[in-house]
């Protein structure tokens, strides 16, 4: 089963629509407090351990700001 | 005396022949009297030179598709008359805004609206220059013979490529439908201009940054430049411009033409260059005015006819020079007074009489009527 190393959110372009939270079946995201460069309140990666690297949040983000980085098997990522 | 073949042809046919010689390989049009022959000739001839002619669903599709073909890298043209010309106005503005070389022929007929489909007129004089929305400039040529339909079409393609602008050939039903001798020069006697294409790399290329002549190089689509071409006022990289960028963009596309009029402006004088009475004419009226000048000479009258061949941008200096010494100016046109206004604007001397000899509703002015006008309004 895949798991995620991290989820990057490009704060330059995030518009805080929270569709990532909506499409995620595993409750990885929550509304956050930090504001993007466009002054929208960004989502927060609350439960990275839940992430199965399904890629839905990445492919459905309307601003293409999400990148899900999968854990490489059996190794520590730098 | 020009070399080349001599053929007897319709003005409209001469226009199509010239377009083919100039390298036009895409024509999109819509049937409309009295311009239809141009579409029909192109539909027969373009396939023979590996070109494509399409009859579109309306004039709007015709004018926009020639802009598309132009960005595809192909010289393109359309032809219509007054009602279709009205429909094309937004598309003409588009060609200006995206700086697409193309040629649009308007064989004028009676207006307004459907007007008189088979009668000549010159009522689109201002529409040719100001018919689209916003601030812009373009080039408008006025042929008065089948030979000039040919020559001006070659010139139109060259100017459109040189300035990256739509060029309008403002003809009229008489010139479009007259059948007379045309000398078709040998190809090696003609010069054909191609648009500048970029020489720098894709990374260095800034799509709407002009060279010193005010015209940016134009890449064909799918040659690697991947450029955004939008119909909005733009910044140098092609995005929507802020106020300052839009200001610069609009002013540049106007000045790129208007600052270089010496390259193309043309005004001819027929008759006695020192005559105190001068006609001002354009398009088919030039023909009758020449006969009037000749008739006048036989009667001992000194007359000249100033023929404006490039009506827009209006050649103020050339017109003033051609009218120097005239005390009485009779503007002869087939509308209710249009080029008359330009003459009044350009000749601001109260002691010079400027009169209007106007004919509308397809009633072509006869040479003797010019002389009668001079006599009656003495």
């Amino acid at each position: 089963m895949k798991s995620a190393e991290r989820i990057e959110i490009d704060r330059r372009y995030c518009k805080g629509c929270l569709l990532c939270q909506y499409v995620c079946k595993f409750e990885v995201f929550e509304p956050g407090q930090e504001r993007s460069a466009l002054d929208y309140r960004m989502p927060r990666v609350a439960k990275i351990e839940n992430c199965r690297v399904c890629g839905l949040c990445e492919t459905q983000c309307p601003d293409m700001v999400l990148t899900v980085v999968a854990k490489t098997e059996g190794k520590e990522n730098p | 005396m020009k070399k080349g073949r001599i053929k007897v042809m319709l003005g409209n046919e001469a226009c199509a022949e010239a377009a083919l010689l100039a390298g036009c390989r895409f024509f999109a049009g819509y049937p409309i009297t009295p311009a239809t022959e141009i579409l029909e000739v192109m539909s027969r001839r373009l396939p023979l030179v590996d070109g494509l002619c399409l009859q579109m669903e309306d004039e709007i599709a015709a004018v926009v598709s020639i802009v598309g073909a132009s960005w595809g890298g192909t010289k393109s043209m359309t032809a219509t008359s007054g009602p279709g010309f009205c429909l094309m106005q937004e598309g003409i503005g588009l060609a200006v805004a995206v700086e697409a070389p193309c040629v649009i022929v308007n064989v004028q007929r009676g207006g307004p609206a459907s007007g008189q489909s088979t009668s000549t007129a010159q009522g689109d004089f201002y529409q040719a220059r100001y018919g689209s929305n916003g601030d812009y400039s373009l080039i408008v040529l006025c042929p008065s013979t089948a030979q000039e339909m040919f020559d001006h079409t070659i010139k139109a393609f060259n100017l459109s490529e040189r300035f990256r602008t739509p060029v309008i050939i403002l003809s009229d039903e008489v010139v479009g439908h007259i059948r007379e001798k045309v000398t078709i020069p040998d190809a090696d006697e003609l010069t054909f201009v191609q648009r500048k294409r970029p020489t720098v790399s894709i990374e260095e290329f800034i799509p709407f940054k002009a060279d010193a002549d005010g015209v940016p190089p134009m890449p064909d689509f799918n040659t690697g430049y991947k450029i955004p071409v939008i119909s909005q006022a733009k910044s140098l990289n092609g995005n929507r411009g802020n106020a300052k960028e839009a200001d610069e963009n609009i002013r540049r596309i106007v000045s790129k033409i208007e600052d270089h009029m010496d390259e193309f402006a043309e005004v001819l004088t027929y008759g006695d260059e020192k005559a105190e009475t001068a006609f001002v004419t354009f398009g088919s009226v030039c023909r009758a005015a020449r006969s009037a000048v000749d008739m006048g000479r036989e009667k001992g009258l000194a007359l000249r006819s100033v023929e404006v061949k490039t009506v827009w941008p209006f050649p103020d200096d050339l017109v003033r020079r051609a009218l120097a010494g005239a005390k009485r100016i009779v503007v002869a046109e087939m509308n209710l007074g249009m080029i008359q206004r330009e003459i009044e604007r350009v000749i601001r001397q109260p002691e010079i009489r400027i009169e209007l000899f106007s004919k509308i509703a397809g009633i072509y002015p006869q040479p003797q009527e010019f002389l009668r006008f001079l006599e009656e309004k003495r």
Partner: protein
Amino acid sequence: MNPLGEKYLRKPFLPFLFCPGCGDGMIVQSFLQAVDDLGIIDDLAMTAGIGCSAWIPVYMHADVLKVLHGRAIPAAIGLKASRPSRKVVVFTGDGDGLAIGGLHLLHAARRNIDMTVVIVNNQIYAMTGGQVAPSTGVGSRTQTTPYGNLEKPLDGCKIAVAAGATMVSRWSTVHTKQLTRTFKKAINHKGFSFIEIISQCPVQTGRYILGSGSPQFNLQWLKDNCVAAKDPSRWGEVEAEGKIPVGDLLQIEKPEFMEEVRRMNRKVKDEAEAKGGDR
């Protein structure tokens, strides 16, 4: 920026001008995935008109001609005529494509010209602030139908089929994988391909018609109302239930216009040359 964006987006033009949660950005990504899978970015020539969806292709680093309202299809025809090997894709909206641009849609489909027309249908004129569109539902209160829309909406897919399109599909922005697959299919289809995408507009359609401006609510609305029907004969049933059928409606092979006309022209030219003249 995700890796697909890094590879294909026109960075100096970012951020997308689309509202938060708008479907247009989702379409950019679904389309770019198809372009990446096919490797065709260099052969792509895209046109668009006016409206929110018209900006979709501008954000892609490719050759784009964004023209007047409703005229993206004629511009595309000119580009295709100029070089038929181009992959021509048109992005238009329910207003740009079905109202002012409707006539061009009919005739391009009738001719079966090899191009892909993508109609992004958000059931409203969004860019201008939320006026009624030819696709807006009966009863909707919009900025220009403040007492309720009385007009029956047009079905773009049915029009495309009737006019002669040889590939017609409809999806929604929710169906990202199906969209990418359909984009690839359409680009490879030789003939006129038509893709309607029901897309969310939280700010106009959401607030004025559906009752909420929340992007999540609007995406849920698409999920609830766009019903996938694999069998085109079931589309009538879905409509009778008051839902929007999505799926592949049609794909047939018919002679393609640019190819046919060029074949005919070559024949005419060869015959003329054999006769020794050029008339």
